[in-house]
């Protein structure tokens, strides 16, 4: 054991290798570029689907925020809808009482959600099992739901918040009936936030989160401050969820209690699992799959689409994400092997 191991800064070769690893991880992959090209193309090629597409993007952004804490930090939660709902209400209230300018509402919603995340985050750090975490987060979400239900002078209660009006975006682009502005707006916000989230998870900080996820005890003994790091990512995730909620309010110009309901938190988990946990695009891809399936099933059986949704989920979980994800690769390898033989 030499001194270099104990000193705070590792020797140059190790630092270089770490830096190289980090850059390699952060490099853009062709599939990612293709993904965003497809997203941009959908804006121009599917003009009559913009309303549905906006919904998908908002759900995707929400699922992405969940991925940050479940997939990267390994914290399970059933109450992420709290931040989504808070963001939605703050954006709605801002437009009514303060200013109808959309970006201000977005920023305020983000701040409020992040503040709630910071305030409730320490509850997750209790010496507790997954179940306790699930229940505490669920409890927080239900408390917020009840609060919004009771405070009807502020939130409109069960009738929803009426009279949300949003000014044109940047003073220029009016929010139209076909959702064209809305979709562009959601897409750009989501793109920017994905970039930021991507930067975060590929940074040394992001790597330390993965270390915590894989083994919190070891991470702590390596000198990673587990508590503050988890708190930070939780708040950031809450911030993104708040923005997703605000986008929903601003594009639909309506907020109802539904944004805080339990099924939001459950749905977004399903979305994330459909798309795959822990690679940032899982949420977005899952949202596309979820909404298309939902659309398709509810066209087939308007009342009982939940059954088929459940069945799909059941099959996905039973087969296992890993096997589905590696299926193309295994097929390719088999083809290669046969080609060579």
């Amino acid at each position, binding site marked *: 054991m030499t001194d270099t191991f104990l000193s705070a800064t590792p020797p140059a070769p190790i630092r270089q290798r770490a830096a190289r690893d980090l850059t390699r991880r952060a490099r853009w992959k062709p599939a990612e570029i293709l993904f965003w090209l497809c997203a941009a193309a959908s804006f121009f090629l599917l003009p009559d689907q913009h309303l549905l597409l906006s919904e998908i993007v908002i759900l995707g952004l929400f699922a992405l925020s969940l991925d940050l804490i479940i997939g990267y930090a390994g914290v399970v939660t059933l109450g992420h809808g709290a931040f989504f709902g808070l963001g939605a209400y703050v954006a709605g209230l801002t437009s009514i009482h303060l200013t109808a300018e959309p970006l201000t509402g977005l920023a305020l919603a983000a701040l409020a959600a992040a503040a709630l995340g910071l305030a409730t985050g320490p*509850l997750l750090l209790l010496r507790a099992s997954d179940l306790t975490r699930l*229940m505490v987060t669920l*409890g927080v979400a*239900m408390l917020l739901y009840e609060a919004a239900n009771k405070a009807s002078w502020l939130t409109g209660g069960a009738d929803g918040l009426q009279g949300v009006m949003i000014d044109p975006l940047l003073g220029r682009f009016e929010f139209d009936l076909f959702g064209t502005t809305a979709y562009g707006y959601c897409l750009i916000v989501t793109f920017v936030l994905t970039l930021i989230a991507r930067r975060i998870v590929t940074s040394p900080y992001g790597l330390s989160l993965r270390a915590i996820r894989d083994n919190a005890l070891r991470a702590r003994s390596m000198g990673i401050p587990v508590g503050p790091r988890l708190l930070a990512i939780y708040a950031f995730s809450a911030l993104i969820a708040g923005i997703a909620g605000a986008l929903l309010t601003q594009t639909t110009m309506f907020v109802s209690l539904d944004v805080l309901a339990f099924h939001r938190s459950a749905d977004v988990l399903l979305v994330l699992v459909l798309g795959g*946990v822990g690679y940032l695009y899982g949420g977005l891809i899952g949202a596309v799959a979820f909404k298309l399936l939902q659309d398709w099933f509810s066209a087939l059986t308007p009342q009982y689409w939940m059954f088929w949704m459940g*069945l799909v989920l059941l099959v996905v979980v039973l087969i296992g994400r890993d096997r589905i994800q590696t299926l193309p690769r295994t097929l390719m390898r088999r083809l290669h092997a046969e080609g060579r033989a």
Partner: protein
Amino acid sequence: MLTILIDGIAYGMLLFVMASGLAVTLGLMNFVNLAHGAFAMIGGYVTALTMNRMGLPFLATLPLAFLVPALVGMLAERTLYARMYRRSHLEQVLFSIALVFMAMAAADWLLGSSQMLITLPGWLQGRFEIAGIAIGRYRAFLILVCAALVIGLQLLLSRTRFGARLRAAVDDQRAARGLGINVGGIFALTFATGSGLAGLGGALGIEIMGLDPTFPLKILVYVLIVVTIGGTATLTGPFLAALIIGTADVAGKYYIPELGAFLIYLLMIVLLILRPQGLIAPAR
């Protein structure tokens, strides 16, 4: 005042009967089964349907309300749940939520979305008085039945050969298997018993909580709260928790109705902050 207390205890007992199966799967088998409420719903529907359509008396339907969910539970355990024991908690949560969705949609499709009503037999209706305290007959009946179940369950786990085998299988599966204990069979039986108890709870609870296809989700939250607060190491923990939650809920609805469900969630969060491992923490 005392009437409310007794109502609360009856409600808490009911919660415990529903939650006990979950406490066992969660605490002993370490499986997060959010679909537990679905079995309670099956039990409720069995009672409601056999009473309303076949004209069976209330008491006669109760064994059925235990047996049918138990059979369904055993079937589901062998075919589906057994594959999920080794998976992560997140996957178990999703798997069981999927089951809940399917159960809710299926109940809606088969039986319609309206509330199921039953008429209790005459001797269970109304109230009687002891020392000036009015007690609902059905509440008293609930307390008696549930207390008997609780004691029976405790004896089953601590005194019988089956209980000893179950505890052995849970403590160390491999060693238990090595001793010739049929671990798979034990788990299946345990799961069936838990599901059956949930079903019985669902049947007994129709009068108090109502019954419709959203029942699994409604009851899920309460049951989970009970199990989480109680801790899963013992059955005493969930029992205490069920009594606390039941009493708090009934008293809260009576004295401060404007708070609504607020009280329960607040109570849960505070209790979990104080005792993150549950009221009775596992001995380590």
